[in-house]
C-alpha cells in the first residue's frame, strides 16, 4: 500500500537567486491563494518527503518565493540550488496559522526566519511597531531594503560579528534583556531556529509578558 502523504502539485521554477553565501531564494509558479505567514511543503519530486518552507512572497505576486539556507549534507537544499527556470518542483497547498492578527505587535527573527515577515510586509499587512532581526554578519540582513523603507527606525538589526552604524553590535537577546520593560499589550511574533525562539521567549516572559501574547514559529 503506498504511504499516505500530503498532496503535492507540480509547479514550474521561475527563478533561483543566490542571495548571499549559503542563502538562496527560489520562486515558482503560484497556484493557490495563501495568507502571509503560511508555509508550503516542498519536494524535488513526488516521492521524497517534502520539507516545510515559509512563503516569503507577497499576496499580489504571481509566484511563491521561499528563502532557504543550503544544508551541505542535507537531502533537499543541495538539489534546490541546481534547479533552473522551467524545472518542476512539487508543492503543497499553503497551510499554517502563523498569520497576522489585529493589534500592535513586534516581529522578531533570525536568519531566514525573516521570511514570513517579508511576506506580511509585502502583502500590506499591518506593520509591527518594531522588527528585530539578528544575524552574525552584515550581509545576512535579508530584505533590509524593504524593511528600511517601510519601517524606518522601527527596524532594528543586531549583528554579532561585524559593526556598522546601521546596526546594534551584539546579540538581540542582550538588547532585549537590557530593556527595563517591554510593551505588555502587544503580540510578539517569533520566527527562526529553536534556540532563538526559546531564548527570546524566556526573556520576554521574564519581563512579565503574558505567554498568550507570544506567537512562535520554529524552523525544524
Amino acid at each position, binding site marked *: 500500500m503506498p504511504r499516505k502523504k500530503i498532496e503535492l502539485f507540480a509547479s514550474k521554477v521561475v527563478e533561483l537567486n543566490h542571495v548571499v553565501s549559503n542563502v538562496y531564494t527560489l520562486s515558482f509558479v503560484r497556484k493557490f491563494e495563501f495568507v502571509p505567514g503560511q508555509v508550503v511543503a516542498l519536494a524535488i519530486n513526488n516521492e521524497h518527503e517534502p520539507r516545510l518552507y515559509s512563503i516569503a512572497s507577497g499576496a499580489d505576486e504571481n509566484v511563491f518565493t521561499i528563502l532557504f539556507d543550503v544544508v551541505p549534507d542535507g537531502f533537499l537544499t543541495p538539489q534546490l540550488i541546481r534547479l533552473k527556470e522551467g524545472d518542476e518542483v512539487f508543492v503543497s497547498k499553503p497551510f499554517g496559522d502563523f498569520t497576522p492578527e489585529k493589534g500592535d505587535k513586534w516581529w522578531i527573527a533570525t536568519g531566514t526566519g525573516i521570511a514570513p515577515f517579508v511576506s506580511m510586509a509585502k502583502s500590506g499587512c499591518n506593520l509591527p511597531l518594531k522588527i528585530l532581526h539578528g544575524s552574525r554578519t552584515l550581509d545576512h540582513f535579508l530584505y533590509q531594503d524593504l524593511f528600511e523603507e517601510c519601517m524606518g527606525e522601527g527596524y532594528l538589526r543586531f549583528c554579532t560579528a561585524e559593526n556598522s552604524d546601521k546596526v546594534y553590535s551584539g546579540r538581540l537577546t542582550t538588547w532585549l534583556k537590557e530593556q527595563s520593560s517591554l510593551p505588555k499589550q502587544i503580540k510578539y511574533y517569533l520566527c527562526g531556529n529553536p534556540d*532563538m525562539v526559546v531564548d527570546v521567549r524566556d526573556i520576554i516572559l521574564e519581563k512579565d509578558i503574558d505567554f498568550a501574547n507570544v506567537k512562535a514559529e520554529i524552523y525544524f
Partner: protein
Amino acid sequence: MNKEALFGKTLEELKGVVKELKFPGFVAKQLVDWLYKKKVGSFDDMLNISKKNREVLKARFEVGLSTYSNVQESIDGTKKYLFKTVSDQYIEAAYIPSENRKTLCVSSQVGCKMGCLFCMTGKQGFQKNLTAGEILNQMVSINEKDELTNLVYMGMGEPMDNIDEVLKSLEIITSEWGFAWSPRRVNVSTIGVIPAMRRFIEESDCHLAISMHAALNEQRKELMPIENVYSIENVVNVLREYDFGRQRRISFEYIMFSGVNDSKMHAEALVKLINGLKARVNLIKFHPIPNSPLKGCSDEVMEKFKQILENKGVTTTVRKSRGEDIYAACGLLSTKKLVETSKGKDY
C-alpha cells in the same frame, strides 16, 4: 576519531557490512545474535566468528555499547541515567519501576527543536539526533536491563523529528533476530509531526502517544509552536484514517495547567475532538520548570476533569508523578548544564 558502531545496525545493514568485508553471508546472523541476543560489548567475545574476521571487524568498527556516566535515584525508586554520546553530548533516560512494570523512558535526540513552553528539554535547544545505537544503548546499559518490561520514547527529543533512527531502533527491538520484544511493550510519543507520524503508523506496530495538552487550536499554539503548522485537529484527522486494530493503542497525553486547560469547557473540547476514536487519555501533573509562567493543577481539579471525560465514555487515567525529586519526571529531562550554551549563536 570514533569508529563506526555495529550496535544499532539492522540485519539488512549488517548483511551489507558482511558483504563488503567479503565474509560468508551467515556472519550477519551471527553478528545480530551477539549484538542483540547476547549483547556482548567486545568483538573478542564473539566466539563463533573466526579470529581473523574478528580482527577485520575490530580494525573497521566498534561494537558501540557504552556505559552510563551517572545515575541518580529518587525516593520513589525512579532512577535517572546520564549517558555521554559519541559526540561528547549528554542524554538522560529514566527507569521507572512499579509493582507490575519496569519501564524505561528513553531519549531520541540531544535536546529538542520543538520549543514547547512547559518542557525543560526544549529550553536547551537542539544539539543532535541520536543514532539507533545510541537509543538502544540506553536500554541495554542500565543496571536493570534484564528486568525491563516496557519502553517509552518520551525522554529528551521529539521522536518523529528523528524518524529514520527511531524506526531502525524499533525494528531491532521488535524483530525476532533482535530483542524480540512485542511491539505492545513499546510506546512512542509525538507532538504531532504529521508526515513522520504517518510513517511511524505505517511502518511500526508500536503504540502511539500524542502529546496533546490542549484541544483548542488557539490555546495549543500558546503552549506548543508546532500547532502553527500541524494542528491537533489535523493530527486527530490523520489518526482517523488508520485502522489500529484491537491491540494497538493510541493515547493522548494531557499535562494539566492551572487556569489554562483545566476547565469543564476544555474537557468537553477534548471529548469532542477525539469523539469516536478508540483512544485513552492520560492526565499528567505539571512539574514546574524554572521561570515558567505555568502552574500545575491540584489533585481535585485533575480528578474532576477525569470524571468529565469518563462520564463521556473516554477512558482516562491520572499518571502518577515519578522521580520529581531528581528531575526525572515528565518534562524535566535536560542536560542543558552540560551544553556549551553560547557556542555558535548568531542572535
